């Protein structure tokens, strides 16, 4: 990360922490914001966040490691999360998983070299009556078939350059 980018992020962190009176209840919203804008929470960011909340960086790290939507490793611009829980499993998630790996040329848990896509399994998405279900960032897809996978992926590829955020956690 460029020094200026870090400074900017740090300023945002301080501002958000202030909004929460530096109270710890603001920690996760700040982490969600950082995850959204920089696609991971770097050691430097953790340091800045810890300072802003006057807690030890290890505390911050402990929280980050607990939640599956927060990560210390840099994720792709688009995180594809396929449900692997029972109803989607019975509805054919395995074939969808296979096709996702083919289209993206990576395995689950990996990120494409161009930093565009991360492929992950996730647990029940609350779409069990319309499985297999899948999230791409915050967009939900139901009744996904192997045939549809390529179109879905392409629709994100084509958004390259467009302004994309993962959500509005702020």
């Amino acid at each position, binding site marked *: 990360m460029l020094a200026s980018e870090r400074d900017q992020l740090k300023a945002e962190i301080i501002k958000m922490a202030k909004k929460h009176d530096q109270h710890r209840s603001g920690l996760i919203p700040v982490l969600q914001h950082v995850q959204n804008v920089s696609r991971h929470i770097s050691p430097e960011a953790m340091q800045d966040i810890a300072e802003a909340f006057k807690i030890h960086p290890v505390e911050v790290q402990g929280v980050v490691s607990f939640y599956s939507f927060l990560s210390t490793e840099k994720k792709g611009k688009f995180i594809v999360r396929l449900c692997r829980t029972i*109803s989607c499993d019975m509805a054919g998630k395995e074939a969808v998983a296979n096709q996702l790996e083919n289209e993206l040329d990576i395995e689950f848990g990996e990120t494409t070299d161009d930093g565009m896509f991360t492929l992950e399994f996730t647990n*029940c998405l609350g779409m069990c009556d319309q499985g297999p279900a899948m999230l791409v960032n915050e967009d939900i897809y139901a009744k996904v078939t192997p045939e549809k996978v390529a179109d879905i992926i392409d629709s994100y590829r084509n958004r390259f350059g467009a302004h994309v955020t993962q959500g509005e956690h702020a």
Partner: protein
Amino acid sequence: MSKADKKLVIFSDIDVEKALKNALQKPRPDLISEVRESGLKGRGGAGFPTAVKWNLAASAQGDRKFVICNADEGEPGTFKDRVLLTDYAEQLVAGMVLAGYAVGAKEGIIYLRAEYTYLRKNLEATLEKMRGRKLLGKKISGKDFEFDIHIHMGSGAYICGEETALIESLEGHRGEPRNRPPFPVTVGYLGCPTSVNNVETFITALHIVEKGAKWFKTYGTEKSTGTKLFSVSGDCDKPGVYELPMGITIKKLLETVGGEDAKAVQVGGASGTCVPRKDFDRAIAYEDVSTGGSIIVFGPFRDMLEVAINFMEFFCDESCGQCTPCRLGTETLLEGLDMLDEGKCSLKYLRELCSLGETMQVASKCGLGQSAPNAFLSIVENFKSEILDSRCTCR
């Protein structure tokens, strides 16, 4: 989807504004009495009487109190809260205002799971609209009562649906369940008295207060009053959300959803029980087979061992790791299931695994570890011969 097929209680018509205004005219104790009279129990799974919870929070000491909506819906096979959050958000907000009034809270929080971020925009718009109509915020419907709600996003952890873990998470910590007592009704969010309720509970309470406990009790059984939403998925013709009276038999439910040929039904999600065909006369109710609403249908050709493995993988993944019976127990049970899958598990070891499961049920700190072995135990008990026969390595 079949949700609008029948309009019993939750899906019945209601004028939200009128209902809320009527409710706020009533003295607080009357409001809680009506809910008590209805026999409403929490719709999030644990089935704790709602009026008791509200009464405890109301009588707890504290200037600041909170009402929290548990919208973390993560139990495998459950999606009825998603439908409510999408199409019945106004009723949810009104139900929360009503609860705030009943317990004397000014602040409400909707804890929305990260996976449902796509619902947030609509929810925010609903909150804003309700503020505009003076049904939320200061001086609600002209009364000297204020209550506002904000949304807090989860970050992807099933355990945060457990109410004390949810509070830990709100306070900026790892979502690790707390020791109880104290219960959140006395020491909850930020140490203040807090009532945590499920989405469906708030909405049901709104209908009860408006239309009466007596009307509500025309549905259901003596111990499980009213109706409930069921999220139905798996091997059936018509999966979706259904509103059905409590006490309905599994057989009847299967007829409704087109799953008559099922060989087993998982009632209550991964934490629930697997009910085999021979027991389909059993009733879905707190006094018989209990559920937060998840119904997963297994057709005649399903491999029940694969089902058990999928559930146990879920628990291994989602255990917060705080206590040993759960952390190691889920792993050991999963290894056992893998051994069964390879046809390499002795019956002696299988018995040991079952007794480990029983230990977990009593020794785990929270509901996750206590219920993680349920599916394992019921599947092993009911499908042992199927499992052993299909994995025999001696043929």
